[in-house]
């Protein structure tokens, strides 16, 4: 594993409206590593994911987000996307009337530039990835996330990741809403991209995903701070004892 730092959060503090959600988050991801991020509901995981992508509703009140040593703060979401940051949303929104095909083409062209193979080449690539993710071609003509089931939305998120080939992928509960087979397929999709060129932050509540996408490190976010960082085996303790285990470990300080 390379020792280059790919992505770093330094004492990141974030507010949404009047509420201070992140109170100083530190994280370091080296190139090609996969980190799992867990934590109770409402602890700020999605906030963290959204802030990394540049959601305009969140105010960064302190600290920094560094990608290849460059601060992402001040960059628009589209600029971050073009640098290679990708967020698979916990709740992807629908954009009625915009076909999946049209959207994918616009996204791929925006991030990767016009494909040399023309429209035909582009569609061929899309079809191949769709086949892998077992998404039927009929989805290409449907409105983006319009009437999609929870699981279908998640598959489409991963399809986008496979097409956009990001350097940093943040997966926000991609496993929630997936049936057993879909979970395996989606994980295989993610693993397709894994390698030295993809650094991953995988947000999840469950061990099952981490069995399929094996992380190098595990972090637990509680009350807006990283309350625990350790090896991937810690997930077993968490499954057994719940977050009280962490609370016991770190004492009353974060509770």
């Amino acid at each position, binding site marked *: 594993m390379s020792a280059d730092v790919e992505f770093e959060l330094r004492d990141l503090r974030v507010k949404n409206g009047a509420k201070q959600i992140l109170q100083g988050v530190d994280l370091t991801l080296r190139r090609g590593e996969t980190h799992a991020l867990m934590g109770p509901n409402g602890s700020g995981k999605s906030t963290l994911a959204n802030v990394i992508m540049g959601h305009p509703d969140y105010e960064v009140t302190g600290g920094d987000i560094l990608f290849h040593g460059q601060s992402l703060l001040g960059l628009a979401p589209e600029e971050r*996307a*073009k640098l290679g940051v990708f967020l698979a949303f916990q709740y992807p929104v629908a*954009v009625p*009337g*915009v076909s999946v095909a049209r959207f994918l083409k616009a996204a791929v062209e925006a*991030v990767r530039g016009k494909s040399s193979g023309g429209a035909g080449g582009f569609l061929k690539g899309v079809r191949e990835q769709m086949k892998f993710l077992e998404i039927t071609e009929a989805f290409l003509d449907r409105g983006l996330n319009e009437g999609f089931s929870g699981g279908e939305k998640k598959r489409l998120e991963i399809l986008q990741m496979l097409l956009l080939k990001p350097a940093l992928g943040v997966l926000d509960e991609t496993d929630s809403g997936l049936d057993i087979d879909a979970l395996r397929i989606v994980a295989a999709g993610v693993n397709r991209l894994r390698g030295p060129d993809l650094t991953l932050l995988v947000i999840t509540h469950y061990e099952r995903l981490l069995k399929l996408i094996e992380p190098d490190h595990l972090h637990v976010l509680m009350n807006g701070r990283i309350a625990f960082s350790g090896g991937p085996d810690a997930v077993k303790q968490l499954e057994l004892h719940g977050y009280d285990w962490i609370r016991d470990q770190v004492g009353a300080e974060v509770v």
Partner: protein
Amino acid sequence: MAHELPGGNKLLQDYKFGFVTDIAADAIPLGLNEDIVRLISAKKGEPGWMTDWRLAAYRHWLTLREPHWARADYPPIDYQASRYYSAPRQRAGKPGEMDPELAKTFERLGVPVHERGALAGVAVDAVFDSVSVATTQRERLKQQGIIFCSMSEAIREHGDLVRQYLGSVVPPTDNFFAALNSAVFTDGSFCFIPRGVRCPIELSTYFRINAISTGQFERTLIVAEPESFVSYIEGCTAPARDENQLHAAIVELVALEGAQIKYATVQNWFAGDAGGKGGIYNFVTKRGHCRGARSRISWTQVEVGAAITWKYPSVILEGADSVGEFYSVAFTHDRMQADTGTKMIHIGPRTRSTIVSKGISTGHSANTYRGMVKILPKAAHARNHTQCDSMLIGSQCSANTFPLIEARNATAITEHEATTSRISEEQLFYLRSRGLDEEAATALIVHGFCKEVLKELPMEFAVEAVKLLELKLEHSVG
């Protein structure tokens, strides 16, 4: 004296149709009176019945007052300050060839007016100020008995047909602007599709206003005989000037038994500058009459221009089982005011109508949908479905909907759905996280919002309409 607006502003640069053609014109004096009406009729070499028709309309107009019930603010119009006829003086060339200056103009506008260069799939009638300057593909159409020519020519050459149908859908007494148009209309298109004929190509008219202080009053009449079909497209642009020019048109459609007329418009008149200076007043009466059983009329409009739009393409559903449709996108920016919608008048049994209206407001603009669905006592089992959606972009614009439903037959079914939304931050963020900038993301969302309407347009026209919408959005967003 009116001037061209300076080209420094982004909107004006985007309005690439805002140029003026330098061509000598045969123009009559400013103002309006009976002599002017007679003069117009004489210029066009019209028969006496037409002159009398015009004069009757003019006299009726004098008894009417300019309507101001629409959601649009503008000072009273000085009808004596406008010019009612201006025709380009074409330099004599080969017979059947257009003056090169005019040809260049239409080329710049992207309108195929040359027979040789003509797109195979479309016939064009090009109207420049008060006259039609070219009509293409006529020979090809004639072989099938289709008449497609300027209104002036139709009055001279097909007097009986014109006399039978002119004013039969929109009578001169219909409203203030209809009366005015009936008195002074100068040109427009006439289409006649004989029984059982499916018009093999799109028919289209392109209206261009060029002359200063001149109104354009055109009149289009389409008659579809039993079991015939025609698809018709209308486009329009004007120079960017600091004066308001009046465009008061009438379109009449007649569909006989089993006939179908599809009428599509992309309206891109000059809309005025960012402060609301200049722009076209687009006061138009468009109405179709489903006269025969099983006939079908559909209006599709993409309204992206004009300082003020006052327009309600309507269908009178008289024939049993006839169908009326109205699909509309109205986009307003800066200080534009659009008050548009439709009327569906159900007279015959089992008549059906569909209304889909999409309003998008940006800047300081006002966008109003005004619709009426009227079900008369004999219209048993009539049905209407209305879908009326408004999207607001920014916080200074407004959207209003005034849907009126009047059902006088208990077996009728009417459904009405309406939504008003702001462009969603979550949608924008989602698309931006995929690399689209704010403009591109907005354009995509708006495109999706209008999709139901855009899919009703003929293919190539839809592509143009989307480009136009994107261009307009680009300057309105951010």
